[in-house]
């Protein structure tokens, strides 16, 4: 009891110094949490990918399409349960900064394949009935204040012209990490319009989504699909949806690595600040620690006092920093809109924040703790705080 009392009272002894150190820790833990969440958001697509879903695209590049005729051939491959397809639309809603993903899809098979997108049945039925209808995610609807029945005009970039869609359904995510910033509409509508404008671009598919019977057979099925179109005009590359998503992340990997690195640099900086604080503290109290040893307390007890104080300060900073990460994360997500489809402070991030704070607390106490424990009593008693 006396031990804890000493730790807590010592921690609060120099209120300004402790407050400034805690402030530094709060900023560091908060920054670390946000940066880790940004990194997590980058990988959100890959993390939500189902192991049974494959993506088949043109082997040369994603920008080259595949013929619609591949659909039946892929469906016939052993181990394939269902096939759907999608085209990246890349339209602009009002302003280019209002970026969100838009896909022209075959709705029935697509939404069957993504049960995480929860669409109210009546709204989905209305969407199926309306050729110009669209399904949008809850986050997208909230960001642009859209509701069922609203008209969404998009300016096409890959497919030029103005495209008008009517919001027929709003989907929610099965989990908090489900991406609800997307828009889906009928591939048929896109194809018919393209046919009228540029016939040679019609009946083309951006990617096929393949649902396999058994995740363990994903590699085998991928090879079988690609073998099917070997030496054709449009060879395919089939990979798991996760690998496909990570392929996108890889394009910006340097940035992700930099962000991750900065998050740890922040921790190293606060470690230096904390170590300095603890070193000053222990130096000032050398005579007190020597007195404790004179009274019969062991060197380990003295070191534990410093370690405890360091951890206590780190814990206070971490607790406030972690508590602030959630509202600040929400604010940040609102500011960036749909740039990050999923921006959620994960349990793993909180665990990392706790681990970093604990690491800072322990490491900062090592040198002063060792010194206070090993200094000769007579030298300690002579020390002037």
């Amino acid at each position, binding site marked *: 009891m006396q031990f804890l*009392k*000493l730790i807590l009272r010592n921690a609060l002894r120099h209120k300004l110094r402790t407050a400034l150190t805690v402030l530094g820790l709060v900023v560091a833990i908060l920054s670390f949490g946000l940066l880790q969440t940004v990194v997590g958001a980058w990988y959100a697509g890959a993390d939500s990918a189902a192991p049974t879903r494959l993506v088949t695209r043109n082997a040369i590049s994603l920008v080259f399409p595949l013929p619609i005729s591949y659909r039946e051939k892929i469906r016939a491959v052993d181990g394939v349960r269902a096939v759907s397809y999608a085209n990246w639309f890349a339209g602009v809603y009002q302003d280019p900064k209002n970026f969100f993903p838009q896909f022209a899809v075959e709705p029935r098979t697509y939404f069957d394949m993504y049960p995480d997108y929860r669409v109210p049945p009546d709204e989905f039925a209305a969407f199926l009935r309306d050729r110009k209808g669209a399904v949008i995610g809850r986050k997208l609807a909230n960001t642009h204040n859209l509701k069922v029945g609203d008209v969404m005009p998009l300016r096409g970039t890959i497919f030029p012209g103005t495209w008008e869609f009517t919001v027929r359904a709003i989907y929610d995510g099965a989990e908090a990490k489900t991406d609800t910033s997307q828009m889906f509409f009928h591939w048929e509508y896109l194809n018919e319009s393209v046919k009228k404008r540029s016939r040679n671009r019609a009946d083309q598919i951006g990617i096929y989504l393949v649902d396999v019977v058994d995740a363990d057979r994903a590699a085998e099925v991928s090879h079988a699909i690609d073998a099917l179109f070997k030496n054709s005009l449009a060879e395919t590359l089939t990979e798991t949806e996760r690998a496909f998503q990570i392929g996108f992340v890889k394009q910006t990997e340097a940035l992700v690595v930099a962000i991750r690195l900065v998050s740890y640099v922040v921790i190293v900086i606060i470690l230096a600040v904390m170590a300095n604080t603890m070193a000053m503290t222990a130096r000032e109290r050398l005579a*007190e620690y020597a*007195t404790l040893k004179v009274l*019969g307390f062991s060197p380990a007890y003295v070191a534990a006092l410093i370690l405890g104080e360091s951890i206590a300060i780190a814990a206070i900073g971490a607790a406030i920093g972690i508590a602030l990460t959630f509202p600040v994360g929400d604010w940040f997500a609102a500011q960036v809109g749909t740039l990050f489809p999923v921006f959620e402070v994960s349990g793993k991030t909180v665990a990392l924040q706790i681990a970093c704070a604990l690491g800072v607390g322990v490491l900062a106490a090592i040198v002063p703790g060792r010194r206070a424990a090993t200094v000769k009593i007579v030298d300690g*008693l002579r020390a002037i705080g």
Partner: protein
Amino acid sequence: MNAADTSAEPLIRIRNLVKSYRRGGQVVPVLTDITLDVRTGDFLGLMGPSGSGKSTLLNLIAGIDKPDSGELLFDGVDITRLTERELADWRAGTVGFIFQFYNLMPVLTAFENVELPLTLTRLSRRERHEHVEAALALVGLSDRKEHYPSELSGGQQQRVAIARAIITDPRLIVADEPTGDLDRHSAEEVLKLMDQLSTDLGKTIVMVTHDRRAADRAHAIMYLDKGELSTADDMHERSIR
């Protein structure tokens, strides 16, 4: 007590004690061939000029420093051979310390400071509190037990330190300039208390002091100069010569 009493087994028996320090590669002798006996219940005053080695001798007697050579027996146990851990336990149970600058924990109240050494014992919380109350009553600070050291005068802080020194009922009390930081009135109170510890409680006390008035409270005074110990008579002889 004397430089080497052969009549009865002393509580502290020091023979040919040598201690030196290293300063910038040089060996500086502090104590040379000290021989001294202190019997149970003695109140010994150690005087001498600054740098004479009196605090060093006190530290050796109290087991917070180790000699280069020589013998230092406490109740028959050679404490120079104890390990650091054994010495810490020995100090906790045997020695009470009074420092010039009180050395109280500033974040603990007077009560908590006095209780501190008892947390190393197996006493229950209730027993500890009873002991602390008694010790604070003895030094006349029962009404100040919830005060922090910064809220007490120098004299009161030293009385808290005395209560802390006696709380474990040690056989030996060492005091290093206990009145060195006090005004005359407070010093007198502290010396009275030490007198009481010696006379009423039979504590063995070794006190280092510069203050002649403080030393006069001791039953015997020894002088340390240039690392050598002498009695008042020796000093007198030397001054005649």
